């Protein structure tokens, strides 16, 4: 592992300490008198009906899907942007085609009405 990533590795190992300290302190300092009413789900004082894990609409899925497409696009575009000095005209045209193709995906989703919040 390179020297640079060693820092990140140490950071990842040590970082749980910082949120853990106050939470544990809170656990020790706070009173502990649990009762069933206190532990009820808080839904504005009305008793919970049915299961909390309800079904969600497809809209969320579509947003996540379009996001995935653009995320992967970003993975390709970032290295290209950092190598921009060495690229010729051909490479630029290729990149533009790449971006335009994905923009067409967005345009399709838009035209189909899949981006509407319902």
């Amino acid at each position, binding site marked *: 592992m390179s020297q*640079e990533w060693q820092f990140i590795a140490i950071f*990842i190992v040590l970082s749980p300490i910082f949120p853990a300290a106050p939470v544990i302190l809170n656990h020790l300092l706070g009173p502990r008198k649990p009762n069933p009413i206190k532990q009820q789900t808080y839904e504005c004082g009305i008793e919970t009906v049915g299961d909390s894990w309800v079904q969600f609409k497809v809209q969320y899925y579509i947003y996540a899907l379009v996001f995935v497409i653009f995320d992967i696009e970003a993975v390709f575009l970032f290295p290209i*942007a950092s190598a921009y000095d060495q690229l010729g005209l051909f490479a630029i045209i290729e990149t533009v085609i790449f971006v335009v193709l994905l923009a067409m995906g967005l345009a399709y989703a*838009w035209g189909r009405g899949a981006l509407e919040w319902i």
Partner: protein
Amino acid sequence: MSFNIVEFLKSLVGLNVSEYLKTVVGDQAWVNFVSDVLGVVIISTFCLLIVIFLIWLERKVIARMQDRIGPNRVGGRYGLLQTVADVIKLLIKEDITPAGADKVAYWLAPFLTVIAALLIWAVMPFAPGVIGVDLDIGVFYVLAISSASVVALLLAGWGSNNKYALLGAFRSVAQLVSYEVPMILALLVPILLARSMSTVDIVRAQTVPFIFVVPLAAVIFLISALAETGRTPFDLLEAESEIVSGFHVEYGGMKFGMFFLAEFVNTLFMSGFFATMFLGGYRFFGLENLVVGGDWAIGRLLSLVVFFVKMFAVYFVFIWIRGTWPRVRVDQILNFNWKFLVPLSLALILTIAVLDKVIPADAGIYARSSILLLANLLLAMIAIEIMRTVARRKRKGSSVDAVLDVNEVEHHTHDAHHEVAAAH
């Protein structure tokens, strides 16, 4: 190039910690290890402690904007210790786990949020040499960590066994992932101009701060940063009047405090990141290279001050926006993103990419910058004009609904048809 606080101290006050460490632990590998640990502790402690100040600052500034006084009792006239008192209050709250909660998810969520909020600070260049680590993929690293932190919201929402929490989590995640797209595309612009993903390289490339070269990218980044940190006008994450408090409704005590903390740490990070990417970071007319008396590099200390001034200036803008704008509806938030910001940022990145190659390489930096600036302003004007036309058409199409605004759903589907028609 690990955390250079050791070297920083050396050049600043002539304190040679490196040599001292070497005599204590011996091996160079151990010196690196110890200085890494020191760096992690310094960065994390800074993030945790500054939040106490940030919360006070925000309350005070917002209060002034709303013609109130704000905290003024605890800790003197200015209520300086108000947040400290709040922290103590959170610490002595009872630690409740709601009935039926998914314990793993419920407990993991606040930890993950804070860890992600801290980890991104590793690549923030505070001053020359004062950076956790100068990764060659710095900006990409920030995006990766912050996109992975979205998972924590889902954990919190799922683990709480509460419909409001789950609904809030889903809305938040939809908002966060959506606004990540324009953020990624806006960040591509400075990377393209600097030819590097390293935050330090991007600061070095800003002889002319990028906000004067590509202001449109800066604005897009600022808007998506607001949304990513869940601040007004995009604070659906904790829409008090709609879903009680969003994904963390079932959290109390310090576990709630951790979400709150992460939010502020993230906001400060975004301010600092904006300063780094668009305002030239720690640079200020070559001040960072100032050396006094032969070897005392006072410029480094001054550049630290410069960075903090810039960061807090952006932070102030964040508070200002909060004090000025009301919350936006969830469908408006997402429509604005997918139908305006994303196409605009795609157009911007293509324009900049092509222009960058078209402008002859031997053109001076100022000529180059002005051409890019002109292109930016032109694009912004076109975008605003399109938005105005669409909005005007929309108003004409549904003026009755707009006035009454009773049947929200119908009104909206009506609009939707118009937008689809406009697209064709």
